[in-house]
């Protein structure tokens, strides 16, 4: 089947987010055909080019979000009036949107009021399709004026009532950028109109083409969010942005997220944290299916199955060095450990992230030197510090699995964490772990390692000591962790989960297309019944379509306006 993969600043670009995951997904599902619809975020990203694409990627279409391309104003008075009315409606919804309560508090209300945002959005999309683009119009004076009127309306949010002109302009510019997918020509029959399923790799603007394809052609939409886009919007908004702008934009993104979750056939959060946000934003629980990100497990196999390389007195920390990892806490905890077990060593493996990370690494080195003086076994030996800072690729740890292999216990001391990749890697390596209770740690570790509160060096120290003193327990925990990771966090499970989801969604909401003959008349019974069955289309078996006598002599193969059935129809003819 044909999958339309929707990305924003993501997959085919070398510097894209989540490109590894998308690449594995596309390579793993070679029986499907992928079309990639990518929005690029910066000029630099566009210039850096794409990563090599596998043959199952049939087509890549890109559109920039960074240029402010100007397609002029709308031609025609009627179209202009239509735009003004529609945009005013959208602005009114945005400026009056109240905070949604908890999902169970707000029962579904069906009615014209319930879906004002969606109808305004789709009306704008239809207008954009008719007029060939709205980029100029969305930045025009008419749009700004409509926004101003909406903000001055009596029911508007308090924060936006005193909005200033410069803030209106900023909001209009941001909305134009967020609504850029409306002006694209992706929704015709040779674009997203011909796919069987849209898979958006993020929420927000990336999922907008999927929403429109669903609106225009009825194509089901699958949304995968490893990080919730709305939350990223909140965290990414600069502090200097005026409150009115932030209120309007937050309201827009919240409504957009709710609309995406409402229309999507299935939403797959990457962890429970994302799932909670999605539920909070109005996602139906029945639609949510957690699909954990997959990681390459094979390179850890050797380390994970050989436990003899363990140095029983070494703790290992692996990750990118940055303040959120709270290495200071780890060093203090290690000081406590050393009081009880003086011969323990700590290896901190990782490169600093950015300038802040470099400064933090320097700070940690200083602290380590202060806390732990160099020491030697005897008076004639050369001393060494019990804490070592290394980088992957160095002589001590040439490879990532080697870094984990060296330690008896892997420690994670973060105060803020999303999905803890280093923890999963440690699990793959079959190492016992001690982690702080942040982000998705508890969900990942699931009882196969110790968890302590964040910012608590003594708790961390005691948990590490407990493991250091008990090799048997360490071994048991490590084996359990490896088993758990192999079950939940492999690439294979990720790809298989999406494969199942694709088939399930397509079988539940197949796209019904009308076949037409040469003259454009609809062709009754043109599609064989098998075409509606999922899972068989791309296999070489010949579906039994119309019997041969049903074909009139000399009749040409019916042209398929929407090419979704291109496998089925020629086969039917040959049968």
């Amino acid at each position: 089947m044909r999958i339309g993969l929707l990305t924003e600043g993501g997959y085919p670009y070398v510097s894209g987010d989540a490109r590894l995951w998308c690449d594995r997904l596309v390579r793993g599902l070679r029986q499907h055909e992928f079309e990639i619809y990518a929005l690029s975020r910066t000029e630099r990203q566009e210039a850096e080019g794409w990563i090599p694409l596998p043959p199952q990627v049939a087509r890549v279409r890109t559109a920039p979000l960074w240029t402010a391309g100007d397609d002029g104003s709308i031609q025609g008075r009627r179209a202009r009036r239509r735009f003004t009315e529609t945009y005013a409606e959208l602005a009114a919804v945005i400026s009056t949107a109240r905070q949604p309560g908890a999902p169970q508090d707000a029962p579904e209300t069906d009615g014209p009021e319930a879906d004002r945002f969606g109808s305004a959005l789709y009306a704008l999309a239809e207008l954009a399709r008719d007029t060939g683009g709205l980029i100029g119009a969305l930045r025009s004076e008419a749009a700004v004026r409509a926004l101003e009127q909406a903000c001055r309306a009596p029911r508007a949010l308090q924060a936006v009532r005193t909005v200033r002109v410069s803030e209106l302009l900023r909001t209009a510019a941001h909305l134009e950028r967020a609504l850029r997918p409306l002006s694209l020509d992706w929704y015709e029959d040779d674009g997203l109109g011909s796919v069987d399923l849209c898979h958006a790799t993020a929420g927000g603007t990336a999922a907008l083409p999927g929403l429109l394809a669903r609106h225009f052609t009825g194509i089901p939409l699958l949304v995968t969010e490893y990080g919730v886009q709305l939350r990223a919007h909140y965290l990414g908004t600069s502090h200097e942005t005026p409150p009115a702008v932030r209120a309007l934009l937050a309201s827009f993104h919240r409504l957009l997220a709710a609309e995406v979750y409402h229309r999507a056939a299935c939403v797959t959060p990457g962890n429970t944290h994302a799932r909670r946000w999605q539920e909070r934003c109005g996602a139906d629980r029945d639609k949510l299916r957690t699909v954990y990100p997959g990681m390459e497990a094979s390179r850890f196999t050797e380390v994970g199955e050989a436990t003899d390389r363990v140095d029983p007195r070494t703790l290992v920390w692996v990750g990118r060095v940055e303040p959120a990892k709270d290495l200071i806490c780890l060093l203090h905890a290690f000081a406590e450990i050393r009081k009880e077990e003086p011969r323990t060593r700590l290896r901190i493996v990782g490169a600093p992230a950015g300038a802040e990370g470099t400064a933090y690494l320097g700070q940690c080195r200083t602290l380590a030197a202060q806390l732990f003086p160099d020491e030697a076994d005897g008076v004639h030996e050369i001393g060494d510090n019990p804490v070592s800072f290394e980088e992957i690729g160095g002589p001590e740890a040439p490879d990532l699995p080697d870094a984990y292999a060296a330690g008896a216990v892997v420690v994670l001391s973060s105060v803020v964490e999303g999905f803890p990749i280093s923890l999963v890697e440690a699990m793959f390596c079959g190492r016992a772990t001690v982690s702080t209770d942040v982000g998705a740690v508890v969900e990942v570790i699931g009882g196969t390692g110790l968890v302590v509160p964040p910012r608590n060096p003594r708790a961390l120290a005691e948990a590490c000591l407990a493991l250091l003193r008990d090799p048997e327990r360490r071994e048991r925990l490590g084996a359990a962790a490896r088993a758990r990771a192999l079950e939940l966090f492999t690439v294979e499970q990720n790809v298989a989960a999406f494969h199942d989801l694709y088939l399930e969604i397509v079988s539940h909401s197949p796209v019904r297309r009308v076949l037409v003959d040469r003259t454009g008349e609809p062709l009754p019974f043109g599609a064989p019944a098998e075409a509606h069955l999922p899972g068989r289309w791309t296999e070489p078996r010949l579906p039994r379509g119309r019997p041969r006598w049903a074909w009139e002599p000399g009749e040409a193969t019916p042209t398929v306006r929407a090419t979704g059935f291109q496998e089925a129809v020629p086969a039917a003819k040959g049968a």
Partner: protein
Amino acid sequence: MSGLEELHRLGTTAPATTQDPAPADGLTTGLAAVEPRLAEGTDPAPGPSVRRGVAGSGSPGGVDPFSVPPSCGDAAESVPARRGAAGSGSPGGVDPSPVPPACGDAAESVPARRGAAGSGSPRGVDPSPVPPACGGAAESVPARRGAAGSGSPGGVDPSSRSPARGGAVDPVKALMHRHRDLCERAVDPLEIAAGLEAHGLTDRAAARFRHRDVFSLAEEMYARVPRDGERPPPSPAPADALRESWAWAAPALLPGVLCTAAVIAFRLTDGRLRLAAAALGALAVALGLRAALARGALRAPARHSPAATRAWTCWLLVYALLGDGLLRAALDGGPHGPWPPATAPLLGLALACAPAIWCARLFAAGARRRLAASRGLTEFTSSVTPLLLAVVALFVCALAALLTLCAAVLHQGAGYAGAGALGTLLLLARLLTAYGHSRAPAVVLGAATAAEATALATAFAGRLPGCGFLATPVRALADAFGTNAVPALVCAPAALALLIHATRTLTRASAHARPPGSP
């Protein structure tokens, strides 16, 4: 210190925070002391978890009213048990079964101390008699200190007890104080929730504040932030980017300087050399003009400078140089040999490039200031319109002054009307182009060019037999007001048309959303 004293001390409602070597920040400890729980059991319900937190904390005075003795005993037991067997590992052997007690106990036992030290359970402290089940917990603490605390800074000194307990009465208030900026600038509860999570607050930590999850905690915080409706004064506009760069100034003077040099060369040379000087001068001035307009406030967006506009501009300038003489010659039956070019108006126009760019900058900066200050679109429009008119008037004055100067130096007629109208027309056309409105200037400049060409053509056509009437209007005009009246009559209405267009388009707020010349 005797065990009795220890018990007594713990029995008070104010456990000593100095037990903990960590900074005795009530809030930090409050946050950090996540209630003990099984590593897998992520029960977000506040009831049992808080209860267990208090029980495990081993503070006998702080017994939560919800606490049930058996469970209290459970949690309390684990502490001394683990402690006692410190050397031999934990008692609950590790079992990678779904409910691993060992993992739990490591996770549990540790915050337990923290909870005791940091007065973790903030609410529902009930100074009821010590239930028997908690006795174990109370005992365990001295045991711990006996085992590990000999060298630790957790020496028990009743005099050093922290009095900072008051903040914990309302932990949410303390949390709000800590995240003051976040709460004040949040536009909705979800923003607070996102910010809190970014600081590492989880649902389990939110349970300490008696909330189901971070979202409901954020809602309470959002609701409690005082909002008196007063907006903070708008931050001063960011330093104007245009003001900082003076790189435009030198190129802006380039056309004037080059044109002066060309005129001097033209005057000093003769014959064939003069022709070469003129050609070279024209080329130099064109390049200088290009350099001057490539930056600064009159820079045109990449795709908004159509070739037609450039062609019409060239024609109009050439007419200003040679047109008047040619028209006079045509009306007099000429031209009989070369006629003197009107270098003064052209030199004035070239020198006027600098004031033109400066005026455009003035307009852009003024519009930007008004943009930041205006409260409404109508207010902005009504405040920018006078600015635009003033800027154009300023340019006209500067142009008039330069024309007078050039005429005086070169001892020529200034041609105020024609050159002044042409200069204003070119300024407005370029200003509109810089703000992305390139169609109207192209049309108006084209019309002006056509009108001037028609005037010349009729003057020549009038010499054809039977066509004398064609030249009558031009001849009448030239005889009454001089040949300079023709470009004046053509350019002045054109400039007026562009001025009207500019007062409608350039006074809109959306025209100033981006600095002029940006693509």
